[in-house]
Structure formats: structure tokens, C-alpha cells
């Protein structure tokens, strides 16, 4: 190699770099850099025009400083000047600077684009190359706008040099990735496909990348590429190792191109044309055969390149999933790699096999390697390889080997790396559940899991074991016995205490016959752990105790003593204290019948996707849970012994469709009640998604936002400069919003650009369309922007309106949340009470309930509350409060109707706590125990005497939600309320329900209410 010009003569740069390297400390370095920056700045500002060389040198120094990690805020203009230099190296440095320090400053971009345009038109291939590299490196939208039309022409023009074609292809690819909408498809596409046939392998290599990406999005348009790619591939794999000259890499012919072609073929199903298909199969066989040949070189590069092609071929075979013969060969090949001395190959083989395991053709073949994989788990020194082994074991697990795999995973867990423990725990829990034939094995496994890695057993896991034990009668006795035994250990994990407490509370009676596990012994055992546990566990144990009171009357007094002790009754923790008070009271006032009803055994849990699986999915992304559907199917049969309940929509089919959306209720809570957390998440999204920085939400905008939840017009934001007003209208799923930007100053706003930003997940649910506004806003003027809104699906977060503009030379950046909330799209519906209750019963998921308790902001004013109730347009009241309300109604009813003297205070107390998250995985489960669904229906038929009570409850509940009143307020106001509250109006939560007769068990006219007033008083 001749000593070409390295450093190309920038002596000053070399000196500067050595100076920096000689700096002994960070401070010295910064000092040297600042000195240099000052020098460069003065040179740039100086009167004397700099020559090209000096400019290049200084720009290069700036670049070096930037790459060291320092900020550079000048020199851009000089770099742009270099672009129009005729000297290649100056141009080159200019382009490099621009590529590294892109700036969205619009004026500069225009200049840069101009320079690029000139170079593209210069017909000088080296200049064209530089320009194309710069576009590909920056890849911004502005560049796409300017050049996306031009580059395809360069790419397919007959007289373009090969090297320029290569750059053009990849440049277009970059633009297409960044702004697909700006790259027009057209005549050029078919000519691009034919580049696969090009003489020049470099051109084919670059073009294949472009075609692959385009084909992923427009498969139809690029279908012809399949046969071309197959024939190209075939020519490569059959060529002798020297045929391709410089494209042969360590005796492997064109490995990069081969890999790319195989990738391209993975965009399509197996070719339909039998000739093409045959040729492809031949290629794949050749690649597999070559793997068996002795290596042509001992260099690792040879084997890497060869195996890169091999692994890509295997990916294609797995993708097609249609040739059992190839799949099995692939599996055998990977099997060999499992024991290869190269760690890299072992890693990749484990990874690839994971996907093979999900193919029906090769699942069995993968299973034959189980011992090797287990061995890898035990002996691999690299944790990332062991991780792959765990993944593969998980993927190859089925009924036949589940016990072995779970046992191996459990034993690995004892020594596993901390970073992967939680994931292994989840995997073990899922496999144990999915493949349990014998549920005693399942219970043993989970208890083992808690014993070995209790800290990593998340809530989902132990919730799930409880759900399963409750749903399966045959395992309950065993579970009770096993947890009882496990609890005997002197030190057991708190999670075990939770599971044990819960299970004994439910099924302790099943083992109480044995004198070794008599009620008192059970209680003493649990209580011996009590003081070592955290508050949530203690709370759970208190619930267990009250269940014991029902199960074992003989320990009632012991338990009451415990509850009555100061450490419970006066516990500093309010939850514990309250539970103790409530339970103590419940145990003393309630008759055995009531106790038996209230503390009845948990009903079976509704079958739904395992919470653990959901968690693993979240952890690992969707790819690893390919067997989800299968898992679901198996579980619904195994655990419940019955198919899953019919989906909600089936029974609701009779009602008109808009209501189906409203009450079908996805998991999303109604937007207006959505608390600030959503705002936090939104901000993060905003920052990570948009290239230009967006200001944090303006202070105070949150308040304004809340104001718009119930109204459509008004002022959204105001500061000294700018006022933003809104006018909006909504109809069904559509809306239109007029945004008025008022310039409060006398100076022009320049570059005024409002942008609507939807977080990722919002984009799919909410369509916003708008036109850009005039970038100049004159002093005192107002401009208007129309936003068309379409609600596609339910959503929780609101879009953000970001406004950037220049005011007197300073840059302003304001962000406000745009008040588009779900409730704007609510529509009222009417339904018969029968339909209502059908729907009501389907609302049983924990996430469909919510409760919040807060201090009242204002004293209670009956008149206002009444007005609010009657107006009934408060959309704060959602489905959740409704359900809570009905539960409360049931409580009161249960207590009022079965005790001779209704304990009103207790009722209130129970009511206030009833929906609160208790110890189970399911919030509503416990509430349901207290009030089986039958009550609701029963209430309805026999409710007349209870109407007024219903309203008693309705009132504080409603007012609490409105923020006027706390829950424990007296009922004095109620009589006035009940008398004035008309039917059919009191409960209209903007479309959730129209008319109380539709949903609530409060019926009858005002007359009948009045006549029932004495009932209220009698319950007082």
C-alpha cells in the first residue's frame, strides 16, 4: 500500500489531536478545547476571508470536538460553504460534518439541499457519491421531500455508474424507511427488481436490500423478485469458490449477497411455480450439504461466513415450514452445532432451534436434543447462552417431557443468574400449569418454586396457583395439606405464607379432621408467622382468620381475642386496623347464617388468559409466546373442565350496535377519570418519538384540560404571548375541533408551527387530520386551525399539541394536552332492565372495577348536588362507580334484610371498604363472595321496600364521586333527596345509561319514593 495522503495535510488538526491526547486531566482537556473553540470562532468571524483549506481544517477540528462529546453550536455555515467547493477533500469534510451534526434549522437545510442538488446534477460520480452518502446518513424528512423523486431516476438510468447505483439504492432505502409516504412507487419499481440480474455483484447486493424492504410493504408489486432471487442464489451457491473473484470471502462465494437473497425470499411463501420451487429446494439442500463438507480454511472467517448463509437458509426453511425433510435436516445440523466448540455457534443453534420447535414437522426432532440442552444449562459458562438454553427447553416442552424439563429448570433456578431468575420462575409456572395432568404435581411445583426463589415469584404466579386450586375441586384437599406441611418449616418465604393463608382460609376444613392439623393448630401455625410479615400479608391473614371464624366456630373466641388486641384494633396501619374492626364486628353481630353467606367459599374464577402468560409476554415481546392460543385452549379445558364462557358480545347481540361498544368495555377506564399517570407516560412517549424536542406540558394546562372534559368550548391555554382557544363538536365517532391561536403581542410570530402529537398507542385509536397553518401570525391577529377527529377505538391518553414559533428572535416552545377524551364519543343508549342485567353479569374482570377515596374539596351543598344529579351530565361517573354502587346496595340489602336491627354504621363501613383491593388476585372475587350474583336479580324482583335504601346509597356515592362529600356522611340529607329525585333522570352518565329504570334497581315514580321515606328512617 502506497503511503497515500493519510491525514491529507491537516497538520493543525494532528497537532490539536495530540494536544488533547496529552492532556492529563478532564479539566485540562476542556481548557484546551475552549481555547481552540475561541480560536476557531475568531477565525470564522474575522474580516479576512478564509481559504478553503483553513475552513476545512477548522470544520474538521469542530467535528473532532463534537465527537469527543462536546456541544458545537457554530460552524454549520462554514461547513455548508465547503459543500460548494470544487476541491474534493473540502467537499468531503463538509459533507461529513453535515452528516454527523444534522440540524433541522430550515434555512441551513435549504442550503444543504441546494448543494446536494448541484452535486447530483454534476454527473461527476465521486461528487454524486458524496451527495448520496449525505442523504443516506441524514435521511431526514426534508431531504426525502427534496430528493425522493430524483433518486429512483438515478438508480434506474442506463448510464449511471455502478458505484452510484449502489449508493442510490441504499439512499432510497434509507429515505423509504424514514418517510415511506414520500417515496412514490412507479415505473422504476419493475426496473429495480431487474437489478437482481445485474452483472455487478455490488449493485445486486445493494439492490437486494432495497427490494427486500420494499417487498415487505408491497409484496404484490415485487413478486417477480422471487424467481430472480432464486436463480441468482442458485448461481452463487453452485459457483466454484474462485468464480466470484473479489466477492468471494474466505472461500465462501458472496456470503453477504446470499444472506440478503435468503432474507428477501423470507418475505414470501414458498414459490408456487414448481420449477422455481425445485430450484430453491436444490439451493437449500446444497447449502445444507456444504455444511457437512470439510472446511476449505481453518480461519474463523470462513466458517462464520459459511454458517451465516447456513443459518439464514435454515430461517427460510423454518419460514416456509412446508418441507419436512428440510426441517429435519436443519434440526440435525443445529443439533451438531449444539456441541460445537465455538460458543457463538452453540448460542445460535439454541436460538434457531427455538423457532424450529414450534413447527409440527420438526418438534419431535428438536425434542431428541433434550439432554444436550439440559447439559448446556448446567455447563455453559456464558449466561447469555444458558438463557438461550432455558428458552429452548421452554419451547420444546410438551406433555411428554414437562416433568423432566420443569424439574431441570427448578434445579437450575437454585444457581441461576439473578438477572434471569424471574423469567425462569414465570416459565416454570406456565409449564407446570399448562402440562399438568396431575394437579398435585402442579401444587408441588409451585410450592417448590416459592421455596427456591420466593423473591422472584411475582404476584401473578401465586394468584394463579390460588385461582387454579379454587377452580379445581380435586386438588383442594391436597393443596391444603401440602401448604400446611410447607408452613411447618421454621423459615418460610412470605409468598408461601400468603398462599398458605389463603388456601387454609378456604379449604382448611378439608384437613381439620386430622388431629395433627386441627383448627387451632392451623390457626396457631399461621399466626406464628403473622408478626414477621409485611402489611399486605397480614391483611390477608386477617381475612383468613375471619374465614376461620366461619369454618371453625370452636376457634371463634381465640380469633376474636386476636382481633381485639391493641396491636390489631389500634394498629397504625389503617388497612389492618379497619379490617380488624370490621371483622371483629362482623364476627360478633352476624348470625351464623350471615357469616356463612358472607364468608362463603370463593366461587370459581372466570377463565381468562393466564396473568402469568401475559406478564411473560410483556417481558419478552410477542415472538416468544407463539403457543399462546394453544395454551389458552388447553387451560380452559383443563382447569375449568368446561369451555370458556360465551363472549360478551354474543348475548348482547340484540341491542343496537353503538351500545355494544359502550358497555362492551375494553379494559380501558373512561378517559376523564384517568388520573395523571397517563400524562407521565405520554410525556415519555413524546420525547422518545419525535426528533425535535417538544416542550414539557405547560404548567396549569392540566387544570384547563380537566375543565374541557365536560365542555367543548373555551380557552385552553394562555400566557403573555399566546392564547389558544377551542371550539369543538362531536357526533358519534367523529369530531371537529377549531383551534384558535391568538397572538397577544404586537410583534409577528415567525415559523409558527403547531404540531399534533399522538403517542404510539394512541395513533391507532385516534385519527387526527389537520392542515398546517400560516407560519406567520401578525401581532394581535388570530389564526384558526381545523382538526378533524375520528375515534377508531377506545383510548386513554390525550394527544398533545405542540406549538413552536419565533417571537422577536427567541424560540418559543409550548405543549398542551388537547382535550380529546373518550367521553366525547359516548352515546346514550336505552335498554330493557333484562338486557342490562345480562351485561352487568359479564362485568367481572378485576380491571373493570376501580375505587378511589379522596378528601372532599368542598363542603356538601345539597342543592348543588341535587342539581348535579338531576342534570346528570357528569361524566365523572363511569361504569365503575355504577358497579360499586350496586355492590353497596347489595351489602345494605343483605345486612338490612337479615338482621333484625339493621346495623347501619356497619353497613356504611362495609360499604366504604367493600370494593377495595383485598387479598386475592381478583378484586371483585371477594366482593362477589359477599354478594353472589343472584342477589342482584333477587333485589330487582323484591326491591320495592328497598328503593329508598338504594337511594341512600346512591346519594353519598354520587356525591363522593363528585367530590362534594366523603363516604361516611350521615343520611340526614337523604330524605330531601329521595323526595325530589325523579325517576329516569338521576343517573345518566352521558350515555352509559339513560334513565334509572334502565339499569338501577330503583324503580317507581316520585310518589312511591315519598311513600317509602319512612323505610329510610326506620333503617336509621
Amino acid at each position, binding site marked *: 500500500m502506497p503511503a497515500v495522503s493519510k491525514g491529507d495535510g491537516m497538520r493543525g488538526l494532528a497537532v490539536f489531536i495530540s494536544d488533547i491526547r496529552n492532556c492529563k486531566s478532564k479539566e485540562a482537556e476542556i481548557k484546551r478545547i475552549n481555547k481552540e473553540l475561541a480560536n476557531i470562532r475568531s477565525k470564522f468571524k474575522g474580516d479576512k476571508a478564509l481559504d478553503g483549506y483553513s475552513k476545512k481544517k477548522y470544520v474538521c477540528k469542530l467535528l473532532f470536538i463534537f465527537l469527543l462529546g462536546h456541544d458545537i453550536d457554530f460552524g454549520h455555515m462554514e461547513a455548508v460553504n465547503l459543500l460548494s467547493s470544487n476541491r474534493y477533500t473540502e467537499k468531503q469534510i463538509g459533507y461529513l460534518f453535515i452528516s454527523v451534526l444534522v440540524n433541522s434549522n430550515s434555512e441551513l437545510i435549504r442550503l444543504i439541499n441546494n448543494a446536494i442538488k448541484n452535486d447530483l446534477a454534476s454527473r461527476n460520480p465521486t461528487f454524486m457519491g458524496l451527495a448520496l452518502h449525505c442523504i443516506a446518513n441524514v435521511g431526514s424528512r426534508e431531504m426525502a421531500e427534496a430528493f425522493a423523486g430524483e433518486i429512483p431516476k438515478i438508480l434506474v438510468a442506463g448510464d449511471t455508474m455502478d458505484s452510484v447505483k449502489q449508493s442510490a439504492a441504499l439512499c432510497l432505502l434509507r429515505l423509504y*424507511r424514514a418517510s415511506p409516504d414520500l417515496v412514490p412507487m412507479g415505473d422504476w419499481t419493475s426496473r429495480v427488481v431487474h437489478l437482481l440480474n445485474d452483472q455487478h455483484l455490488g449493485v445486486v447486493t445493494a439492490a437486494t436490500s432495497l427490494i427486500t424492504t420494499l417487498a415487505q410493504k408491497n409484496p404484490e408489486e415485487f413478486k417477480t423478485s422471487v424467481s430472480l432471487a432464486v436463480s441468482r442464489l442458485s448461481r452463487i451457491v453452485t459457483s466454484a469458490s474462485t468464480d466470484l473473484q473479489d466477492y468471494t470471502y474466505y472461500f465462501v462465494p458472496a456470503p453477504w449477497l446470499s444472506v440478503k437473497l435468503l432474507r428477501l425470499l423470507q418475505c414470501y411463501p414458498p414459490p408456487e411455480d414448481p420449477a422455481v420451487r425445485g430450484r430453491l429446494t436444490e439451493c437449500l439442500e446444497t447449502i445444507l450439504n456444504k455444511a457437512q463438507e470439510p472446511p476449505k480454511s481453518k480461519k474463523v472467517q470462513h466458517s462464520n461466513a459459511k454458517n451465516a448463509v447456513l443459518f439464514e437458509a435454515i430461517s427460510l426453511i423454518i419460514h416456509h415450514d412446508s418441507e419436512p425433510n428440510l426441517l429435519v435436516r436443519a434440526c440435525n445440523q443445529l443439533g451438531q452445532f449444539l456441541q460445537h466448540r465455538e460458543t457463538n455457534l452453540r448460542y445460535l443453534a439454541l436460538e434457531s432451534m427455538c423457532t424450529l420447535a414450534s413447527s409440527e414437522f420438526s418438534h419431535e426432532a428438536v425434542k431428541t436434543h433434550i439432554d444436550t440442552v439440559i447439559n448446556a444449562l448446567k455447563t455453559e459458562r456464558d449466561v447469555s447462552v444458558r438463557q438461550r438454553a432455558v428458552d429452548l427447553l421452554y419451547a420444546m416442552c410438551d406433555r411428554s417431557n414437562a416433568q423432566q424439563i420443569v424439574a431441570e429448570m427448578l434445579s437450575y433456578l437454585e444457581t441461576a443468574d439473578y438477572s434471569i431468575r424471574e423469567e425462569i420462575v414465570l416459565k416454570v409456572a406456565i409449564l407446570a400449569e399448562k402440562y399438568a395432568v396431575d394437579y398435585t404435581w402442579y401444587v408441588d411445583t409451585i410450592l417448590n418454586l416459592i421455596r427456591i426463589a420466593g423473591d422472584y415469584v411475582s404476584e401473578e404466579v401465586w394468584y394463579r396457583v390460588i385461582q387454579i386450586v379454587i377452580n379445581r375441586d380435586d386438588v383442594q384437599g391436597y393443596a391444603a395439606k401440602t401448604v400446611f406441611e410447607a408452613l411447618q418449616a421454621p423459615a418460610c418465604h412470605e409468598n408461601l405464607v400468603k398462599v398458605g393463608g389463603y388456601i387454609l382460609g378456604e379449604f382448611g376444613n378439608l384437613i381439620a379432621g386430622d388431629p395433627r392439623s386441627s383448627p387451632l393448630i392451623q390457626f396457631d401455625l399461621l399466626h406464628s408467622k403473622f408478626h414477621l410479615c409485611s402489611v399486605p400479608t397480614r391483611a390477608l391473614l386477617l381475612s383468613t382468620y375471619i374465614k376461620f371464624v366461619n369454618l371453625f366456630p370452636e376457634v371463634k373466641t381465640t380469633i376474636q381475642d386476636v382481633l381485639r388486641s391493641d396491636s390489631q384494633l389500634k394498629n397504625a396501619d389503617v388497612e389492618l386496623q379497619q379490617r380488624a374492626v370490621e371483622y371483629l364486628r362482623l364476627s360478633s353481630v352476624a348470625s351464623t347464617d350471615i357469616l356463612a353467606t358472607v364468608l362463603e367459599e370463593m366461587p370459581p374464577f372466570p377463565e381468562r388468559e393466564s396473568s402469568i402468560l401475559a406478564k411473560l409476554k410483556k417481558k419478552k415481546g410477542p415472538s416468544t409466546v407463539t403457543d399462546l392460543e394453544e395454551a389458552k385452549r388447553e387451560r380452559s379445558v383443563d382447569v375449568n373442565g368446561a369451555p370458556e364462557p360465551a363472549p360478551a358480545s354474543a348475548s348482547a347481540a340484540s341491542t343496537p350496535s353503538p351500545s355494544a361498544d359502550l358497555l362492551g368495555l375494553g379494559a380501558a377506564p373512561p378517559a376523564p377519570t384517568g388520573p395523571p399517570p397517563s400524562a407521565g407516560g405520554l410525556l415519555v412517549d413524546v420525547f422518545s418519538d419525535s426528533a425535535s424536542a417538544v416542550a414539557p406540558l405547560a404548567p396549569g394546562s392540566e387544570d384547563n384540560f380537566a375543565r374541557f372534559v365536560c365542555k367543548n368550548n373555551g380557552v385552553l391555554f394562555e400566557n403573555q404571548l399566546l392564547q389558544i382557544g377551542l371550539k369543538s363538536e362531536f357526533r358519534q365517532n367523529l369530531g371537529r375541533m377549531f383551534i384558535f391561536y391568538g397572538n397577544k403581542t404586537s410583534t409577528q410570530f415567525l415559523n409558527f408551527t403547531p404540531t399534533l402529537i399522538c403517542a404510539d398507542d394512541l395513533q391507532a385509536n385516534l385519527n387526527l387530520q389537520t392542515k398546517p397553518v400560516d407560519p406567520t401570525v401578525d401581532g394581535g391577529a388570530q389564526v384558526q386551525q381545523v382538526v378533524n377527529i375520528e375515534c377508531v377505538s377506545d383510548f386513554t391518553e390525550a394527544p398533545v399539541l405542540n406549538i413552536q414559533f419565533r417571537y422577536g428572535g427567541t424560540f418559543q416552545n409550548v405543549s398542551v394536552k388537547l382535550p380529546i377524551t373518550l367521553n366525547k364519543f359516548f352515546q346514550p343508549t336505552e335498554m330493557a332492565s333484562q338486557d342490562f342485567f345480562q351485561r352487568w353479569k359479564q362485568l367481572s374482570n378485576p380491571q373493570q372495577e376501580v375505587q378511589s377515596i379522596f378528601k372532599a374539596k368542598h363542603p356538601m351543598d345539597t342543592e348543588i348536588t341535587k342539581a348535579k344529579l338531576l342534570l346528570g351530565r357528569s361524566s365523572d361517573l363511569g361504569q365503575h362507580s355504577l358497579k360499586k354502587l350496586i355492590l353497596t346496595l347489595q351489602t345494605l340489602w343483605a345486612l338490612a334484610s337479615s338482621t333484625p336491627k339493621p346495623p347501619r354504621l356497619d353497613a356504611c363501613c362495609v360499604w366504604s371498604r367493600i370494593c377495595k383491593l383485598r387479598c386475592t388476585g381478583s378484586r371483585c372475587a371477594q366482593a362477589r363472595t359477599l354478594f353472589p350474583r343472584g342477589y342482584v336479580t333477587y333485589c330487582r324482583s323484591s326491591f320495592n321496600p328497598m328503593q329508598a335504601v338504594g337511594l341512600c346509597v346512591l346519594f353519598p356515592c354520587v356525591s363522593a364521586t363528585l367530590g362534594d362529600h366523603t363516604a361516611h356522611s350521615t343520611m340526614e340529607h337523604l330524605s330531601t333527596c329521595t323526595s325530589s329525585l325523579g325517576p329516569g333522570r338521576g343517573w345518566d352518565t352521558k350515555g352509559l345509561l339513560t334513565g334509572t329504570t334502565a339499569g338501577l334497581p330503583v324503580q317507581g315514580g316520585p310518589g312511591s319514593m315519598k311513600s317509602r321515606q319512612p323505610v329510610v328512617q326506620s333503617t336509621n
Partner: protein
Amino acid sequence: MAMQFMLLFSRQGKLRLQKWYVPLSDKEKKKITRELVQTVLARKPKMCSFLEWRDLKIVYKRYASLYFCCAIEDQDNELITLEIIHRYVELLDKYFGSVCELDIIFNFEKAYFILDEFLLGGEVQETSKKNVLKAIEQADLLQENRIRITARVSMGGLRKNLY
């Protein structure tokens, strides 16, 4: 094969070259760099060259005092990426003549130019060593004002016999 970025850093964790093929803020770039340098430097020599990181795959290899570290997407081919690194090292080596870390420090712009000829937009543009070097040499021939660096000796004589 969409590479997301490529980082070159020394055993001491000093970043020598960074090439980003996806738009990221400077802050994010610094964070990623810090995190990856730490992760990769902590790994032992015999460990495998691939690791999962966020939703990307990291492929790295050490050459003398320098680590070459690439981030690729989930479906991308790890082994061919390893050879991308090797081919780039070969190109540097051929161009500089037995390349060392100092060459990359003092001629960082050249390292970028070579990379641009080889990889563009995160994709392999030209795999032929001859063609890449031809492009760079042509560029070198175009330059005027060639000034020989006499300072090389004063830089401590780390590179000998080049001129």
C-alpha cells in the same frame, strides 16, 4: 440487514468512532454508548459475541485494543454481522497498512469515509475490498495541496516507516 449503529471503543472505554443509522437524540446516543461500553467491557474473552440488549441484538468483537460493536435487529443475521466487522477491519488495515488505534484517532475522518463506502444506511453497499479501496484511493488522488505530515515523528514515533 439493518444495522442500527456501530461503535468503536477502546479497552479503556473511550469512544473512537460512532455511526448511527437511526435518528436518535444526542442524549440518547450518549446513554446507549455508556450502557453498551460498560456491558461489553464487562464480558469475559471466551464468551459469545452476541447478546440481547433492549429489543436489539448486539454483535461485538475485539481487535487488539479496540472493540467493534454493532447493533442489529431481531431477524438479522449475527454471523454475517461479525464478518461485516471483520471486513471493515480488513479495509482499515489495508488502507492504513497495519492499522492501529492511533490511525483511527488521528484520521477519524478517513475511518468514516471508508465506512461510508462499505456500509450505507446500515446496509452493506459494497463487499469487494478492491472496489471500496478503489473508491477511497480515487478520492485521495483527487486532492490537491497534499502536505506531508512531518509531525508524525513528533507524535511519538508510534507509526514508523510510512513515508
